């Protein structure tokens, strides 16, 4: 094989969209979590985000707007406008979750979510920071797996010239790469800063987290912090997991270990520290670690044991066309 042919094959391989099922799950999952934030706070939404709530509109404009660039809620201080933006935001998010024209609802969902989150920084945790960034990457990805009317979109896609499909595939894979990079950066940065702290080094950090009234939110917390072994194991286990993550997600047997570790780690955070949105966002993001084939095999395995007839989105014939170079 000549160098030219090898390059050509690599180029064509790069043009085939990968991990569409995982990205479909990330799109649906993140949008569902955002919708959860809206719905959970309906009783006090005006306190958290309203023009006369925690941060009055004038004060927001004077102090916080500059650091966020733009905000839909800031376009008017009228209550009706606030209510319109809030409820439209919820509607758009639900539409994105079920996959109504993700190409259109994705950017809209980002604009409304950005506005909601930056209107009141005090309701945010690290999970929302990740959500804001992933929503941008998802603009460029094909997240139409599980989307409503995806069949109709595919029928339209068949009329698009092969070159454009290939370019779309390159864009999709670039977004996929950035999402994987973002997850690695998150865990690598987190462990980088942790290891510089004495309490992480001496294995007692978990004690301080779970002992604080703000995070000691389950009976399990007390059991853990009173045990020297569990405190040290939890502290060092956290460091180990976060340090391993950027290296292990690329190889198959380790990837499963890391994914299981991430789910366990974030369910533990949910249980002990009661941060449901943070935990859900982090777990949903892990969906991108698996290939479409892995999802299909897992689904086939499950289907053989469950009386469910639904199928996962099949490989598109277009992928074969792209891979063969048209």
């Amino acid at each position, binding site marked *: 094989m000549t160098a030219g042919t090898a390059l050509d094959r690599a*180029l064509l391989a*790069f043009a085939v969209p990968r991990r569409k099922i995982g990205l479909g799950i990330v799109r649906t999952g993140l949008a569902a979590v955002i919708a959860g*934030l809206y719905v*959970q706070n309906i*009783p*006090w939404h*005006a*306190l*958290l985000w309203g*023009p*006369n*709530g*925690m*941060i009055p509109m004038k*004060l927001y404009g004077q*102090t*916080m707007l500059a*650091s*966020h*660039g733009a905000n839909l809620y800031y376009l008017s201080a009228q209550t009706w406008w606030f209510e319109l933006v809030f409820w439209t935001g919820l509607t758009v998010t639900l539409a994105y979750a079920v996959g109504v024209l993700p190409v259109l609802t994705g950017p809209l969902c980002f604009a409304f979510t950005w506005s909601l989150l930056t209107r009141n*920084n*005090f*309701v945010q*945790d*690290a999970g929302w*920071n990740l959500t804001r960034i992933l929503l941008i990457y998802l603009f460029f990805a094909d997240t139409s797996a599980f989307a409503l009317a995806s069949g109709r979109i595919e029928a339209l896609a068949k009329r698009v010239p092969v*070159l454009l499909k*290939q370019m779309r595939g*390159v864009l999709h894979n670039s977004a996929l*790469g*950035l999402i994987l*990079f973002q997850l690695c*950066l*998150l*865990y690598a*940065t*987190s462990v980088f*800063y*942790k290891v*510089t*702290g004495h*309490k*992480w080094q001496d294995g007692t*950090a*978990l*004690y*301080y*987290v779970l*002992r*604080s*009234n*703000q995070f000691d*939110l*389950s009976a399990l917390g007390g059991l853990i*912090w009173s045990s020297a072994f569990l405190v040290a194991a939890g502290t060092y286990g956290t460091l180990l997991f976060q340090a391993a993550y950027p290296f292990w997600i690329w190889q198959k047997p380790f990837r499963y270990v890391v994914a299981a570790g991430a789910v366990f780690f974030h369910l533990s955070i949910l249980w002990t520290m*009661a*941060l*449901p*949105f943070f935990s859900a966002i982090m777990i949903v993001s892990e969906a991108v670690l698996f290939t479409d084939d892995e999802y299909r095999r897992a689904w086939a395995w499950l289907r053989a044991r469950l009386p469910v007839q639904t199928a996962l989105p099949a490989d598109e014939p277009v992928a074969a066309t792209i891979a063969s*170079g048209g």
Partner: protein
Amino acid sequence: MTTERIALAAFAFVCALGCAFHAAMSVLFVLPPNPVGESVRPLVLAYTHPLFEQYWNVFAPTPIEADLTVYVRAKRVGAPDSAATGWVDISSPLIAEVRKNKLSLYSTLKVAQMTLAVAAKNDKVLGHRVLKPAEAAAMRDPRHRPVILEALKRFALVIGADALAARGRPDEVQLALADHRFPRFTHRFERDDKHKDDTVLLYPWLPSNEVTQ
């Protein structure tokens, strides 16, 4: 090579270059000050702000080491402090709700309460020390009031509304942040005298507001 293949290769190259640039900017943004990062800091900030700003130093380098509790009390304008309501704890009821049910409707309110308390404790003006009389007086003017204090006041007015209205509609409210250092790890089985080592940061009386819930 066909024209189409050249176009695809060029597009892929531009995408790869864009991804590499974005990745480099993101890495430089999250790293602490360093010789490489400092020389290109203006470019990094211009690129990442505000869309790609990210902070992942949760519980790092030092995790939270204290119980933080926010209190609020209210009085009529001009009345002495002795005529104020008792201190109303606005943290504990939210924490108790979330402790009862991890998926509680109150979990975001609890996060807001916690973030405000931590932000107030870490604020250069509001935290760590007793305010000078001139600073406290200046904060009565909304133009000089830190946004954290205003947000905390408004939050407290809604969460503690019933208790604060016990002596009629309040004209003024006062916030306090109790910072309780619980025993260090090696002393974890010792009795935790809840108020022995508390630092209480007392904020000035501020005018009350109507806050929409």
